[in-house]
């Protein structure tokens, strides 16, 4: 991971804003890393303020995937320095197999669903017990459907069920996609941003 950080250190230090106020914009989080160039760069070229932000730097694993012919959009590292990539749902399984076999990612840590109001997104965090590196894969669901990563990492089983339960992302190819944390007859998906907490239909204990 340190290598990666060094490499990214040459780019504008945009991934971690210098001051808490520097990046306090209201845009979605994954656009934030590239949103503000570092302070010295901005001071040198004030005219560049209006120009579109530079594309996030390509990371080690994103480049390897591109080398294997799998289209990837780079999102740059997150605040902790973990490389993030965005993969289209159609390429996910192919990319997963490549990362497992070639890049030695043997451990799927978690699958987190995020409701961005206009789209649903699954974020898979991978870890390698051999190289000790981490990677985050983001997949945007199409019509609430997203391919399951269970054929590649069986550890995704319960994590995808949880994501389905709480956010309603339907994982195609999952053998047992049922609710896991909420009661089996619960209505709706609680972590959606438009979920109504006080809906009278949801008073479960009084039925």
């Amino acid at each position, binding site marked *: 991971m340190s290598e990666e950080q060094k490499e990214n250190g040459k780019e504008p230090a945009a991934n971690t804003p210098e001051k*808490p106020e520097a990046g306090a*914009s209201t845009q*979605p989080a994954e656009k934030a890393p590239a*949103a503000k160039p570092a302070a010295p760069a901005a001071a040198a070229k004030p005219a560049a303020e209006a120009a579109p932000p530079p594309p996030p730097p390509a990371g080690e694993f994103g480049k390897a995937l591109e080398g294997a012919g799998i289209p990837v959009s780079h999102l740059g590292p997150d*605040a902790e320095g973990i490389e993030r990539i965005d993969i289209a749902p159609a390429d996910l399984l192919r990319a997963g197999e490549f990362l497992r076999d070639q890049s030695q990612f043997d451990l799927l840590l978690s699958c987190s669903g995020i409701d961005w109001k206009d789209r649903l997104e699954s974020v898979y965090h991978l870890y390698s*017990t051999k190289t000790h590196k981490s990677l*985050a894969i983001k997949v945007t669901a199409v019509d609430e459907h997203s391919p399951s990563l269970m054929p590649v990492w*069986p550890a995704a089983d319960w994590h995808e069920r949880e994501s389905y339960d709480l956010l309603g992302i339907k994982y195609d190819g999952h053998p047992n996609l049922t609710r896991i944390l*909420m009661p089996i007859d619960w209505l709706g998906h609680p972590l959606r941003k438009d979920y109504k907490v006080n809906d009278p239909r949801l008073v479960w204990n009084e039925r």
Partner: protein
Amino acid sequence: MIRVWSGMNGKDGELMTTIDIPGVHTEQGLKTEDLVVNIGPQHPSTHGVLRLVTTLNGEVVKDMEPVIGYLHRSKEKMAESRSYFQYQPTLDRVEYLSSFFDHYVYVASIEKIANLKVPKRVQYIRMITMEMNRITSHLLWFGTFLLDLGATSPLFYAFREREDIFKLFEDVTGARMMYNYYRFGGVNADLPPGWIEKCRQFIRTVPQKIDEYEAIVTKNPIVLDRTVGIGRMDYETCMRYGVTGPSLRATGIAQDLRKTNPYCCYDEIDFEVPVGKHADVYDRYLVRMAEMRESCKIIEQCLDRIPGGDTQNIRNKQAEIEEARKIAKEKGEDPKAIPDIDPDWQYQGQKINLMTYKPPAGEAFMTCESPRGMLGCYMVSDGTPKAYRVKWRGASFSNLSVLPELMIGNLYPDLMAIFGSLDVILPEVDR
């Protein structure tokens, strides 16, 4: 058909007679039927509220399905309606046996997003408290695991030391179990004066106490009979289910984030990662016992190396500086020429208003090595005072999912040994 032999041990003697009642006896012996048993949700040995829908054939487990969610308190939804600081006390209840770790990943993810500076003294205080918390967590596991196997006395021994550590925690945080001590870029208060010496004296006695436990348990023939060779889980199985922590290290893989991806100041500390060999229940026990000894070593080194030393020392230094500035002012010199106290000696990096604190937009996935495995917090901030999304990766969640694989084909009495050895805590599973 059942064959009756004259000898004592099955087929030693000669065949005397055969019994054959159609429908009851089969070629293999007595006909048995599958029986579905619900173990839990309220069961003394499930360490929380867990239901295991188990299909038994005789004493052999044919199928098992864990049903979780009985303790779901919607921690991730709660983050949407609370400010960052208001959400923090609820984390103590996610995993109440080692809550310092939950606080650490939460606070550290915000520190990463906001790029807050954390003084070195704070890092050391965090390491000391986390390692002591690891000992209390393993001690509770030690007591309850053996209680599941039928031994009552180890629990009392384990709770004796656990209570001593809780008294030390009470001095620092004001609470025995629900600490809420870490803050963004610091800790709530500095260590009380004299605490370091008190802690050092206590920690020196712990390895002897662990010797005492091991004298009762490690070579105990009943424990050996019930644990050696039971619940084997190889490295591939661990990866298939995402199992981490001592259960993974019992397979012989030295995967410990403190060593492989050091956080805080673990790279300055000299310690070893205990690993097992046979990946069975007994090895998981040995790994945890060895980890407690390593934690003692880490704490002793931290107490020696903590910047500033005892709190009284820092207070004296502060008073000296103030005195010198007063004298300089009287003399008509510039009081600001006298240097301030070393920033690494402070217990709070930068003064922030906690109630209205908001980090900039960004995201971070922080992991740390909790007593149960890799604990992760995925924080997505959109620049408002409330978190956009907080996702918890509890180690117990993945560690529990391997249970059916380990149990199918095994005997029912081994359930408590195998389930106990995974050290699952249900509040962390359900969140």
